[in-house]
């Protein structure tokens, strides 16, 4: 993965977490993330299309998503409905994608973003995402997180 693409994604993701949900994330060695033994993770995907195209994926524990939803709403975690957890993750993916595009492609180019998709991530799915060379291991409020980005086409240098 191109260094700029990767570093910008980490930077933008952490900034969005902080601004939207008052949470803090940092990159961590992939070996420190669980290999497969877990349950209750959500996978969110958002695609973009324009002068170049691609997609961003994020896998987070659903309990972390619930905490992010509570932080976003300024509410107690127990008062947040489970469906709000998925909604919070979709919003973080949406804002991250928009900010990442502006950071790498500037403010002149126009991109169409898809509506974010969400699904329960099984152990096999986590293992597959973790095994990708391009995926990035993160820790967000002490919880393991994986993010990945794929880009097709050349990113304009200007």
């Amino acid at each position, binding site marked *: 993965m191109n260094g700029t693409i990767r570093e910008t994604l980490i930077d933008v993701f952490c900034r969005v977490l902080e601004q939207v949900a008052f949470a803090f994330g940092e990159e961590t060695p992939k070996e420190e993330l669980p290999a497969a033994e877990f349950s209750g993770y959500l996978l969110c995907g958002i695609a973009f299309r324009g002068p170049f195209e691609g997609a961003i994926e994020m896998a987070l524990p659903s309990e972390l998503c619930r905490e992010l939803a509570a932080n976003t*709403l300024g509410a107690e975690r127990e008062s947040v409905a489970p469906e709000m957890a998925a909604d919070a993750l979709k*919003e973080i993916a949406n*804002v991250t994608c*928009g*900010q990442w*595009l502006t950071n790498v492609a500037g403010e002149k*180019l126009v991109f169409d*973003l898809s*509506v974010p998709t969400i699904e329960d991530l099984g152990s096999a799915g986590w293992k597959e995402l973790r095994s990708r060379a391009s995926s990035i291991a993160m820790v967000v409020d002490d919880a393991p997180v994986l993010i990945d980005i794929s880009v097709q086409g050349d990113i304009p240098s200007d």
Partner: protein
Amino acid sequence: MAYNILVVDDSVIVRAVIKKTLDLAGIDIGEFFEAGNGKEGLSILRDNWIDLVLADINMPEMTGIEMVDRMAQNGLMKTVSVIMISTEGSQTRVEELKSKGVRAYIRKPFTPEIIREVIDQVLGAGDERNDS
């Protein structure tokens, strides 16, 4: 003066945050309406008096841009002020929206201060609130 406000966004959490932000910003809300996409937004606009629409761009069923295009074809709806709130940062897209009659654009994430400033500009309510 209280404003009837319609928020169009497919995210329940975003609609809740916008409602909270409007309250924090001190916007005088008469009735608050919510829609999950442009189609639902148009339906609410047909049946209710709305002073201001805050709409996202990317939504299932009907996008915010399609909704604005439909509003422009309706004599009454085209007079309603629309502010787009979205994640997109393309100035080209912002200019396109303005050419369609969108009054202002707010980029996510936003703060209560930004919301208040933009709504004051669009509705011209700042002086009134300062006087009260």
